[in-house]
């Protein structure tokens, strides 16, 4: 990087134009559209590191996103990337992954996109043990459209479509994923950057359906409606209320409104993927 560096000598601070992660970012599109304190950027930052650590050749990594705030992730990553319609990232990714098994296909999308409208795709891809890395940024709300209730919104939380507090039971996503047969399931908040990075690295290198739930603050909508303070306050909440419990029974990891958030690696198993089984079957192999 031979960019102009202003060295304000006494403070030892440098003002620069480029960032070490820029090579994996479409830096011509930065700054991104996410609100200040939104956690998605941090999740992307972790992903960039994780991708580097995973040893996967960058050109062999394809990122697929759906619609919504997190749906924009594909557009900021300097990889082969596809921005599908609402909820359909997983089936698109399925097509890519099956058509060219050399590619590492990552679905990076939000909770509304993956779990609600795309819920059927999510559970079926997990069931098939499709060789995908799914990173689900869960901010408990539909952010892009202005803060509507999602299938992950905790009970009693207020949203624009549950103005008196959500009366529905939310999904316990890791439990759902385990029930569906996912090979790898982890959950971290965006505060747990190093662990999140590690989980993403593991997920990228996992042969099979790997699911990483990333709890992220939405200060603009979720937090404001529920009077939870700034994004920093939410981060602080994660700090105080996240409990690391690797191998926790996913049945116990549901998230209530401002309750303890159990994080950790919940599931890490090895079993043949869809394609392995499919090809084993068709070549008359089998196990």
């Amino acid at each position, binding site marked *: 990087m031979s960019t102009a560096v202003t060295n304000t000598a006494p403070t030892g601070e440098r003002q620069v134009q480029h960032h070490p992660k820029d090579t994996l970012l479409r830096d011509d599109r930065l700054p991104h559209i996410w609100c200040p304190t939104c956690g998605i950027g941090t999740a992307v930052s972790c992903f960039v590191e994780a991708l580097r650590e995973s040893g996967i050749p960058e050109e062999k990594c394809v990122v697929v996103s759906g619609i919504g705030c997190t749906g924009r992730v594909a557009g900021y990553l300097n990889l082969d990337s596809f921005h599908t319609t609402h909820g359909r990232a997983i089936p698109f990714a399925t097509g890519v992954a099956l058509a060219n098994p050399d590619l590492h296909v990552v679905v990076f999308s939000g909770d509304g996109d993956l779990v609600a409208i795309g819920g059927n795709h999510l559970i079926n891809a997990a069931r098939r043990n499709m060789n995908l890395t799914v990173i689900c940024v869960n901010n408990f709300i539909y952010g892009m459209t202005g803060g509507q209730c999602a299938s992950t919104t905790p009970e009693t939380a207020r949203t624009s479509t549950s103005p008196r507090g959500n009366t529905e039971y939310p999904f316990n996503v890791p439990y759902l994923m385990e029930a569906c047969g996912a090979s790898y399931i982890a959950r971290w*908040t965006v505060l747990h950057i190093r*662990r999140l990075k590690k989980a993403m690295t593991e997920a990228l290198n996992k042969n099979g359906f790997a699911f990483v739930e990333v709890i992220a603050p939405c200060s603009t909508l979720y937090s404001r409606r529920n009077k939870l303070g700034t994004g920093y306050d939410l981060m602080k909440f*994660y700090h105080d209320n996240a409990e690391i419990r690797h191998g926790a029974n996913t049945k116990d990891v549901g998230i209530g409104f401002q309750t303890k958030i159990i994080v950790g690696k919940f599931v890490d198993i090895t079993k043949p993927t869809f394609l392995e089984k499919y090809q084993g079957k068709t070549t008359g192999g089998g196990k």
Partner: protein
Amino acid sequence: MAYSEVVNVSGFVGNFKVTVKKKTRYVNEKECTACGECVKVCPITKPDAYQTGFSTRKAIYIPFPQAVPASYLINMDDCLGINPIACGKCADVCEKKCIDFDQQDKFIDIEVGAIIVATGMDVYDPSEIDEYGYTRFPNVITSMEFERLICAGGPTEGHFIRPSDRQRPKRIGFIQCVGSRSAKRGNPYCSNICCMNTVKDCLLLKDHYPDTDCTVFYMDIRAFGKSFEDFYMRSKEEGVKYLRGLPGEIEEDPATRNLRVVVENTNGGGVDFHEFDMIVLSTGVIPQKDSAVIRKLLTLSKTSDGFLMEAHPRLKPVDAPTRGVFLAGCAESPKDIKDSVAQAGAAASHANILLNAGHISIEAVTSVIDDSMCNGCELCIDVCPYHAIQSNGKKSPPTIITAACAGCGNCGAACPTGSITMRHFTDMQIEAQIDAILEEDGDQKVLGFACNWCSYAGGDFAGISRLQYPTDARLIRTMCSARVDEEFIWRGFHKGAAMVLVSGCHYADCHYISANRQTVQRVNRVWDKMERLGIRPERLQLEWISAAEGQKFAKVMRDIEQMRKRVTKEEIDETVRILNEERDKAAAKKAAKTDKKEQAAA
């Protein structure tokens, strides 16, 4: 199990269930090869406690080279990785991948028959004695710091230097009894080991650097152990100067950082001035800071000096008052290594006797339930601090697990139907005692209830100490103050007692975990009712007296006599009348109820 703490103890002699918290080291000690790469990259430096702060360690460290286990650990309080964020440099460089920030404390349950408490001691912090300038003057050090500075494995690799300029000090003063034998600051007791330690330090110096000039300021040199006197004399022969008298103040020459003391020479008389390159404060021994935790877990007591109390100072010096628990080393009192080891052997031997016996009898002071009277209200289950009573479903009588019952009698006092009998402390037995005591001249008497472990023992201690107090008290011993049924108190007043005293262990020190909380509730209820009935609540007193509080016991006795004197015969007669009336009313009510029931049945 290093880096572990006992967090819970239940059960009883021969059958303790202990939960040990194995604190996480964040380093897999099995995998760690102690290569030290992590230390190189760790950005956090902290003073090394092992080297008394003379050198640094990182947030990831081995306590000292010979530590067992020889594995690194991360001090999370120091580490940048304030959960849940970690800088992770150590984890990144660790080839064996044995650093795991997600490690959690482990809780291990073990079962043991005997417990030896060897929680040791701490060293007195002399910064409290400001005139000695510790922490103000770099060349004033403690005896523990001396150990590190002279040690070949220490921060200076055994080159004895003074901290201010790293030059070898040639004139060294030792001040004895820092924090010991002082009524005002530190502790009143003799710390036992400091005299000999100073003698040793002087000899070490003379050995390493014969030209060193050592001066010891002391009150007495207590060299009472085997070959100690020889040792002391040897130091004198080597030229160590002993001056009787403790300096009042240390001053520092800001230029040279040398230290000056003024001291009254109580041997020779007169005031001496001395200048030193370095002064060593011979600091005393204090009870282990956390000993209260273990004390509480094992229901032990402490003596007035803060060390753990033995079951008997002469006959059972290594037994704790709680059966199956033994004390050893400085947890019990300050002592040197030899004595500690000896006591360790003794404690082990006593534990051995217990373990080898293979079985033990539990005193028959336990509860039994008469199923025919029980109405299944389960109040007893709620009050039992030992969870020794098991529910069989509401409405049916619960079961008492005799082995788990410690015999406090709380359940018996709580039982509204009288269906729980506290063996050997039955209602009938205690009521007979009340009646016997108040057979004559109740107005002259204080009817007292005292728990076996604290108040009664406090009374014994007053006796042993020959503390005189008025004669009006008549104590009834119960295992715990929680055995005192409200009915006993009423019976006392009804039989004409001028005063009733309920006494037990201090609130937080109950020998039955939390049983005496119920005592408080019961006494409160009686006070309320006394107030309602027009009986002066002052006539019922509740006192907490520990086994070591003979003085307090005597004082309580004196105070209560004064109260007793204020109670007139008329007042007592009035009380008896009121209580008679109450009894009649209660009887009438009961009869009416029975009638109703019979009517309904008819």
